[in-house]
């Protein structure tokens, strides 16, 4: 679910870059406040490789198989580091696999980083008291927010003379087609965090 090059007008692409840069500056500010930010670089990089590799594996979600987005999981395990991790991941995906493109990088950054931060927030607020609920909401909430952002950007970006009704119809189908993905990611995050809480709590970001 990457926005490709050339779909949206150039002003939106530039605005996307500005928003991503803003998010990045905020995240870097929060990261600098941590005790030893440099020491966390390898940790963030290694976890990012796992997310990256896992998103390349197709997971069965009947009736088809899909590629996971994992933005929610990145938020829960990386906290504010999810923003640089998402941007690095998107850049590499654009360069290595041609998913997304370089003009759309900023917009894609917003589509993935905001949901990651949302998941982080949900996990911090709800996950403390009801971990399973928090995990499920973080996983599927991130997918839903990403879908919403994606749909909004495409709607706003397509040429105005197009038939609005048909456009909305197409987007509705697109969103409905992704409901199983949202559920699947919720289940994945829930199961995964149960495992981590049981055997390796250090992986859950607190801060």
């Amino acid at each position, binding site marked *: 679910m990457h926005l*490709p*090059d050339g779909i949206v007008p150039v002003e939106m692409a530039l605005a996307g870059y500005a928003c991503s840069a803003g998010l990045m500056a905020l995240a870097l500010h929060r990261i600098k406040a941590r005790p030893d930010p*440099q020491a966390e670089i390898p940790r963030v990089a290694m976890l990012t490789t796992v997310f990256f*590799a896992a998103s390349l594996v197709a997971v069965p979600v009947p009736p088809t198989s899909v590629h996971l987005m994992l933005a929610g999981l990145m938020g829960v395990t990386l906290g504010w580091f999810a923003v*640089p991790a998402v941007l690095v991941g998107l850049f*590499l995906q654009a360069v290595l696999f041609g998913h997304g493109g*370089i003009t759309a990088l900023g917009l894609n950054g917003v589509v993935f980083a905001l949901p990651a931060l949302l998941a982080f927030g949900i996990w911090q607020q709800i996950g403390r008291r009801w971990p399973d609920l928090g995990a499920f909401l973080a996983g599927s909430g991130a997918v839903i927010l990403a879908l919403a952002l994606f749909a909004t950007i495409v709607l706003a970006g397509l040429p105005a*003379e197009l038939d609005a009704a048909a456009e909305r119809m197409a987007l509705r189908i697109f969103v409905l087609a992704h409901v199983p993905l949202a559920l699947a990611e919720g*289940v*994945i995050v829930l199961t995964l965090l149960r495992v981590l809480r049981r055997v390796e709590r250090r992986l859950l970001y607190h801060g």
Partner: protein
Amino acid sequence: MAERGPGPTARLVIALVLAFGIASVQGLAVLPYVFVLAIGLVLASGQWRMVLRRMRGPALLALGLCVVLPLGSGTTVLAELGPFRLRLEGLEAAALIAGRLLSIVAVTLALLAALPPFQLVAGLRSLRLPALLADLALLTLRYLDEVTAELRRAHLARQIRGGHRGWRALPDHATLLATGLIRAQARSERVWAAMRLRGYGAGLAMPLARLRARDWIGMSVALIAALGVIWLDRVL
């Protein structure tokens, strides 16, 4: 590999400038000039086979747009084929979007695909990108293959012992991902020790050579070309 033409930093700048120049095209009239520019770059890169191969995905997407948009939107009906109506506005929009998409992808691939990704990241670093981002990208690239292979072997191990198929495999996937994360965490501790022991401070990337004359020439030409495309788009 980057000995021919501009270095990685300049290539990144050129790609960004041209891509945004093309992205700002609003009319169909300038598209032929854009195509000439893109095809010229692809031929000059000497990598046209690889560029074509990697363009298959975007080409499919463009084809999809060209089928869906003319049928689904617009008011001026051009032709009727049974229940389908081909419409002018949709056709124009599709041609514009597909044209921009394909030319931007062709230009970026022609400029960047032949460079090793590590050099690209080093190039980003010399564009004053925060060191944290560049180091993150370098380490991620460095370990991506190994982690992918590990994950693949773990999937094999699951399969050999009769792991479920279909939706019942979801929890297993989550477990595999969890083990992957745990191993990544342990590994990151060792990598950090290794980095610190050899005096990590100024970043991982080797400093790139300073910009040379051909880098400056390339960037200037790209800027002029991009502005030219925008100007032509206005006047045509």
